[in-house]
């Protein structure tokens, strides 16, 4: 959002730097935003701006060129379309940019912008749009380009295409819950006269007949809704593993069989109300636990980053576009500016200038010459290159790493859940007490024996116990999520509380991706001359240029003539009569290539064709970085693994206290091995990383957390995603996970107290349906209320729930 005192862009709300672009008596920050506004206003779609102030997404480069040409390929088109009958087609896209009601409005009024769109429907929760269009009026490619033109860039990757059909959500929990809830309600109803009827004979007839309803309605509960517990318990027992589901299953079965017997033999009312209630509550717990962040992806593998298609050149130099999976060894493929290298290969034509930040974490592009070997995963910056494929996509270096390692994750024995540790002892105790009381009663009064046995099983059924974890961790997960830390599942909370070692990636994790500390020390220029450089930098949108421009103090409005930008090389121009060049050493024509980037990113400057020195850009560390590290350092063993060179070792050592656990120039594989070694030494490892280069380590660690500037856009497979703006609270999150484990422990104590009380009553043969019907929900509700309130309260108290708004 715009800083105070500056003008906010009418479209996207960003600061209008350097000067607003006026149009239609409104101000825009860039021509991109202005163009989007123009498109919308020409098509009478300005309601977009009425719904929310500045709802747009900052428009960066909107020139699509041939980028989406592959969508014209029939084969690819077919893969992407959900449905097509030749006349009308439907397509679904994931658009991470969807963030407010204006987005919904605009995307559902696409028909205003272009003919041929019959209907479009947004699913906001999933950030998904489904568009039905007429093939003869608009092609898939045009449709995508239209979306891009208004800056809603759909994510189209191999991953999306492949998983199109698999994306069905498992709804069975809702079905089970619905069935259980419905039966529970009805059984309660039919049990009413049972509890309350007077002694009247006719009322009595109704009452006994209503028991039959209860029996019928309990069948779906036990056979469908509750069967997961029985099945899971059985599976566990077969594997010699006693989970919490065992006592639950015992309780459910005891409830059902005894009640069925009582009803069939007309000897009593049974406990069907308790049975249905129990299953219903348990399922609510399961449902609460099952919260997912639909629009986030925790499972992205390399395919998510790779293009859908590649351009292949035949011997005559003719271009054809083929799907990625069809690349064969020996094929010559064309890589344009900004395109990813999909497979390992040999550079045969052009000058490679590859950004490997994805793979290595190294933020400076690497130069490659003809004949050099190129690894997949790099992004070409600059002119097109041609490579000859040496390995298939699946066998390439990066993807191999992935394929080889993911399935061999070494599991840490420390990571067994609290509940599973307790449930074993609990189960034995229950069986012991129930059998014991059965035997005891057999000698006192044999007729009570079976009753006492089943009663203990019924009352001991650890409903509250089973609910405490889902609700405590579920609520913690929700609180975390509201504060920018998204967990894949509730168990992660407990694992987080167990870690003792934290491994950080450096670039992009500890440092910010697009902000630099700028040092002018190595330049021989006065303030006035520096301004000229800034005036030149103002002309370019390259992150380095913007960073230089941003460091200004006054107003920069010098005019620049003959401005020229050479991609990935540098910029030049004449400012107030001075010829200035900014860029790489080669670009500026210096000979001092030695130790080019040892101390950071050097931008060389030539002033009037004379090398003046360089501007030093160092990655800026994240806000609160040193605080977080020094706090965590007290309790955890900290490590840093960086793909970069050692330039930052000294600075990091200051914060970390020592450089013992710091390693540089680490390949993705090195990182993975390092984490593995730590684990073998008995450590429980939290890996915090960002890029694909950390993917292996994130996978291998006990808990991988990915830091992302845009949580919807970019994150490798991991267990948690941390919004980069919340990096400084990482320590709080970890600490709070311990609190919530404590809460669970305490709630287990509460539920055990209930169980002991109930079991005592049952062991003496005193359990009646009313007591069962009161005790079970009472204990569950106590525990659920306790864990939910205490997690929320403590989170608030510990400052977890600070006001935080999700970024656009």
């Amino acid at each position, binding site marked *: 959002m715009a800083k105070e005192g500056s003008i906010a862009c009418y479209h996207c709300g960003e600061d209008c730097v350097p000067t607003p672009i006026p149009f239609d008596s409104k101000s825009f920050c860039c021509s991109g935003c202005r163009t989007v506004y123009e498109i919308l206003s020409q098509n*009478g779609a300005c*309601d977009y701006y*009425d*719904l929310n102030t500045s709802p747009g997404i900052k428009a960066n480069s909107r020139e699509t060129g041939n980028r989406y040409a592959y969508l014209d390929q029939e084969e690819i088109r077919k893969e992407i379309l959900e449905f097509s009958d030749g006349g009308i087609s439907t397509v679904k896209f994931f658009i991470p940019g969807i963030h407010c*009601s204006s987005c*919904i*409005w605009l995307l*559902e*009024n696409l028909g205003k912008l272009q003919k041929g769109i019959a209907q479009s429907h*947004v*699913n*906001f*929760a*999933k950030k998904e749009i489904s568009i039905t269009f007429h093939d003869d009026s608009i092609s898939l490619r045009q449709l995508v380009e239209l979306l891009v033109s208004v800056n809603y860039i759909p994510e189209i990757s191999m991953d999306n295409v492949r998983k199109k059909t698999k994306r069905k959500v498992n*709804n069975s929990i*809702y*079905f089970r819950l*619905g*069935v259980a809830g*419905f*039966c529970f309600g*009805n059984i309660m109803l039919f049990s009413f006269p049972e509890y309350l009827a007077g002694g009247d004979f006719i009322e009595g007839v*109704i009452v006994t*007949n209503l028991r*039959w*309803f209860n029996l*019928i*309605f309990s069948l*779906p509960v036990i056979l469908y809704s509750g069967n997961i517990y029985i099945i899971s318990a059985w599976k566990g027992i077969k594997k010699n593993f006693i989970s919490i589901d065992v006592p639950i299953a015992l309780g459910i079965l005891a409830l059902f069989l005894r009640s069925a017997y009582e009803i069939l033999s007309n000897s009593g009312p049974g406990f069907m109300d308790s049975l249905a209630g129990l299953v219903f509550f348990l399922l609510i717990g399961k449902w609460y636990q099952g919260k997912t962040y639909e629009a986030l992806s925790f499972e992205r593998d390399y395919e998510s980053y790779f293009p859908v298609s590649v351009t292949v050149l035949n011997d005559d130099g003719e271009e054809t576009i083929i799907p990625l999976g069809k690349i064969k060894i020996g094929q010559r493929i064309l890589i344009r500016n900004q395109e990813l290298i999909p497979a390992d290969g040999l550079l045969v034509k052009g000058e490679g200038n590859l950004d490997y930040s994805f793979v290595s974490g190294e933020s400076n592009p690497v130069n490659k010459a003809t004949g050099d070997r190129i690894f997949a995963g790099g992004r070409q910056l600059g002119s097109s290159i041609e490579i000859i494929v040496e390995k298939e996509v699946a066998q390439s270096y990066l993807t191999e790493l992935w394929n080889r390692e993911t399935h061999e994750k070494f599991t840490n024995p420390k990571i067994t859940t609290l509940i599973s540790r307790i449930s074993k002892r609990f189960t034995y105790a229950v069986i012991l007490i129930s059998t014991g009381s059965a035997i005891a009663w057999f000698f006192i009064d044999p007729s009570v024996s079976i009753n006492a046995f089943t009663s203990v099983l019924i009352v001991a059924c650890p409903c509250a116990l089973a609910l405490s974890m889902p609700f405590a961790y579920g609520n913690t997960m929700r609180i975390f999520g509201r504060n920018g830390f998204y967990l894949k599942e509730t168990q992660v909370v407990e694992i987080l509380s167990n870690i003792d070692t934290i491994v950080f990636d450096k670039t992009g994790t500890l440092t910010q991706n697009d902000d630099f500390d700028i040092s002018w020390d190595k330049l021989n220029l006065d303030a006035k001359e520096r301004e000229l450089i800034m005036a030149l930098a103002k002309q370019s949108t390259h992150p380095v240029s913007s960073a230089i421009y941003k460091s200004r103090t006054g107003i920069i409005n010098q005019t620049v003539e003959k401005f020229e930008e050479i991609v990935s090389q540098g910029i030049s121009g004449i400012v107030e009569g001075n010829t200035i060049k900014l860029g790489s050493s080669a670009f500026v024509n210096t000979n001092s290539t030695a130790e080019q980037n040892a101390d950071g990113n050097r931008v060389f400057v030539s002033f009037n064709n004379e090398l003046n020195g360089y501007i030093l850009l160092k990655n800026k560390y994240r806000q609160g970085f040193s605080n977080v590290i020094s706090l965590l350092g007290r309790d955890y063993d900290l490590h840093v693994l960086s793909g970069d060179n050692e330039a930052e070792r000294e600075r990091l050592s200051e914060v970390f206290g020592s450089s013992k656990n710091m390693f540089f120039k680490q390949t993705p594989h090195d990182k993975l091995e390092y984490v593995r070694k730590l684990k073998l030494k008995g450590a429980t490892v939290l890996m915090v990383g960002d890029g694909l280069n950390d993917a292996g380590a994130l996978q291998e660690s006990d808990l991988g957390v990915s830091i992302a500037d845009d949580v919807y856009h970019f994150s490798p497979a991991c267990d948690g995603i941390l919004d980069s703006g919340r990096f400084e609270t990482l320590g709080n999150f970890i600490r709070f996970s311990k609190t919530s484990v404590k809460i669970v422990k305490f709630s287990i104590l509460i539920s055990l107290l209930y169980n002991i009380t109930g079991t005592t009553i049952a062991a003496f043969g005193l359990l009646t349906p009313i007591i069962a019907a009161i005790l079970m929900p009472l204990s569950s509700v106590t525990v659920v209320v306790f864990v939910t309130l205490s997690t929320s309260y403590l989170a608030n108290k510990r400052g977890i729930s600070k006001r935080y708004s999700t970024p656009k």
Partner: protein
Amino acid sequence: MGVLILLISFSIVVAVGFLLAFIWSVRTGQYDDEYGDSVRILFKDDKPDPPVSM
């Protein structure tokens, strides 16, 4: 007694119907997008395009 039997069968039929309806409604994504569905009513109605007068 006949009434009770009638009632039982009636309830079961209804229960099954209810169950099916519920399953259908979930399966077909009825409750997929709460935000979108709640916010659409706030959008102003489209006026038809005014006649071109240039």
